[in-house]
């Protein structure tokens, strides 16, 4: 009988039900879209964040103390150490290899051009590396997409990039020919492009790594590798592990396994360190922490928007259900006169609200998929991953909103005096 009453009421008040469903649809579509995007956001935002720079630095383990000025090693106290460029493919063999989105090796030296000494940097601009999963394209272009190049990126031997300030001082433009001299050898290059980063790179010269190695007489050597990895913001476990010298010793075996198998920046760094026993991997903490803080704030913003959407939807449901209660005042009075208690009346309205919630939630989920795709396309330039667990979650949220929105109208219904209602 209860289901019959609810079904009849929903069918007869189609317009009001449609209004309530619409109100829920708008709210739950937003909530569902934010949930979908939120579940996908760590990956998407991680990829976006990777455009702000590498977050792990790999350098040779050395007894010497490196001295760096403006990001460039200028010397070492003690004997200088190097990594081998042939070993770098090992970065794509670690447990979280798929999270390594790119890396670039660097070899530094000095060169003279047009009578001025400048920092010479050998690196990979765009380098194809053979991995077990096939070719992997990496290099500066991948990990530093903010570099602005006027002209072209070098794509062959004998080409270089020159920093904007240095080029301006030497009055060099793209396409010009330059002779580089270093350590008694010299070589002719063509300026492919002028690079501008707003940082110390604006005063440096960039050539392909093998050419720098040849000029500097350091074949196969690299001084540091900047690694860009997709990571997960730190949680309690990551923060606990961070305080330990070796998480393998400090954490319980279960926690260690969980930590090792989570893409925390420290766990990925740890795995890189395992792959390069002669190297020293360190997270670039400020980048990693900025990412974590940004993701946290973004999720808070999403939660606030979702909360506001829920409140707005609940208000829509309240308005519609209040109108329904007024419209059904006589019917409620009759039911009470026949012996219905408030629980009978409340049960009927709450069941109606739940049904409206289910319909609104399911419709909202459908609309949310579209909205999530739109957000993914506009904000992240890719579609948001379809997430089935969001469907029951959206329906439960929608039902909760509908029930909360109905609380006040149900209270009003319970206060209706049968004698007044029957008199009309």
């Amino acid at each position, binding site marked *: *009988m209860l289901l019959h009453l609810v079904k009849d009421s929903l069918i007869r008040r189609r317009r009001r039900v449609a209004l309530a469903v619409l109100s829920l649809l708008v709210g739950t579509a937003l909530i569902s879209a934010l949930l979908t995007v939120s579940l996908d956001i760590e990956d998407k935002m991680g990829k976006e964040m990777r455009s702000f720079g590498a977050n792990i630095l790999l350098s040779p383990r050395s007894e010497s103390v490196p001295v760096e000025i403006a990001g460039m090693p200028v010397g070492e106290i003690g004997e200088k150490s190097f990594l081998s460029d042939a070993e770098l493919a090992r970065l794509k063999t670690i447990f979280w290899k798929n999270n390594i989105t790119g890396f670039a090796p660097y070899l530094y030296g000095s060169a003279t051009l047009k009578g001025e000494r400048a920092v010479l940097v050998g690196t990979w601009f765009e380098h194809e590396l053979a991995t077990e999963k096939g070719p992997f394209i990496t290099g500066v272009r991948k990990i530093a997409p903010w570099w602005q190049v006027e002209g072209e990126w070098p794509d062959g031997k004998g080409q270089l990039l020159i920093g904007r300030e240095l080029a301006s001082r030497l009055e060099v433009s793209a396409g010009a020919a330059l002779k580089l001299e270093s350590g008694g050898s010299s070589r002719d290059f063509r300026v492919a492009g002028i690079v501008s980063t707003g940082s110390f790179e604006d005063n440096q010269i960039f050539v392909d790594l093998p050419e720098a190695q040849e000029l500097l007489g350091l074949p196969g050597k690299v001084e540091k590798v900047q690694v860009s990895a997709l990571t997960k913001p730190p949680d309690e476990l990551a923060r606990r592990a961070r305080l330990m010298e070796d998480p393998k010793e400090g954490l319980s075996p279960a926690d260690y396994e969980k930590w090792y198998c989570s893409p925390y920046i420290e766990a990925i760094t740890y795995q890189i360190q395992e792959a390069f026993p002669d190297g020293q991997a360190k997270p670039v903490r400020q980048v990693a922490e900025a990412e974590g803080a940004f993701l946290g704030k973004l999720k808070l913003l999403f939660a606030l928007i979702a909360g506001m959407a829920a409140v707005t939807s609940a208000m829509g449901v309240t308005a519609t259900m209040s109108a329904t209660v007024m419209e059904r005042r006589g019917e409620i009075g009759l*039911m009470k006169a026949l*012996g*219905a208690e408030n629980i009978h009346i409340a049960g009927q309205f709450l069941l109606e609200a739940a049904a409206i919630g289910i319909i609104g939630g399911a419709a909202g989920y459908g609309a949310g998929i579209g909205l999530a795709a739109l957000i993914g396309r506009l904000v992240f330039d890719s579609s948001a991953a379809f997430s089935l667990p969001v469907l029951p979650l959206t329906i439960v949220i929608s039902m909760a909103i509908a029930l909360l929105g109905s609380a006040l109208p149900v209270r009003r219904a319970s206060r209706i005096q049968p004698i007044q209602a*029957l008199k009309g």
Partner: protein
Amino acid sequence: MKEIIKISGLSKAYGQVNALHHVDLSVREGEWVSIMGPSGSGKSTLLNIVCGLDSPTDGSVLIDGLELAGLSASELARYRREMVGLIFQQFHLVPYLNAMENVMLAQYFHSMADEESARIALERVGLGHRLDHLPAHLSGGEQQRVCIARALINEPRVLLADEPTGNLDEKNEEAVMELFQELHGQGMTLVVVTHDVSVGEAGDRIINLEHGRVLVKTAPKLQTA
């Protein structure tokens, strides 16, 4: 016979207006009592208090030993669904439920809706052929008979009717009165509020109200005080 309704010193005031003044009356089990009086005499107020739809300002209302004054809203709801059957002048049927469902509605609040007993109740009032008709497709008399079937479905101790024939034509009024006679014959206690003298005189006893006070009349049938 046992007194099923016993009202003592019942008063009801709406602000400064006294609708009922120290009313005392009793109804015996199986008795048909008509309550009559001009508009504003307090007869509907009296019936509403006996129905448990309104509460007295003062006095006592005992229904089969149950004191209504002081009952909570929930206890009054239980009293209405278990002890009395209500018949309204306006019928008050749920428009989107058919005749059988309207009867089953009272069952649902009482215990469990049961199609078979609802069908029997409607057959008892002569509507066995109109079970799945909506109220809008029934005549006034038929609607009132659905209302009577609904009032009877939970086997109440007392049937309380407020102007049951007030909205009916002569033919339908006769049908309803025949039904009341039949129920009375089966031992049902009836309290009927009416303006209509012919309806009032069909009862065992007429209680006349005027300005909220009781004047007892002896009905021709019983010839007893």
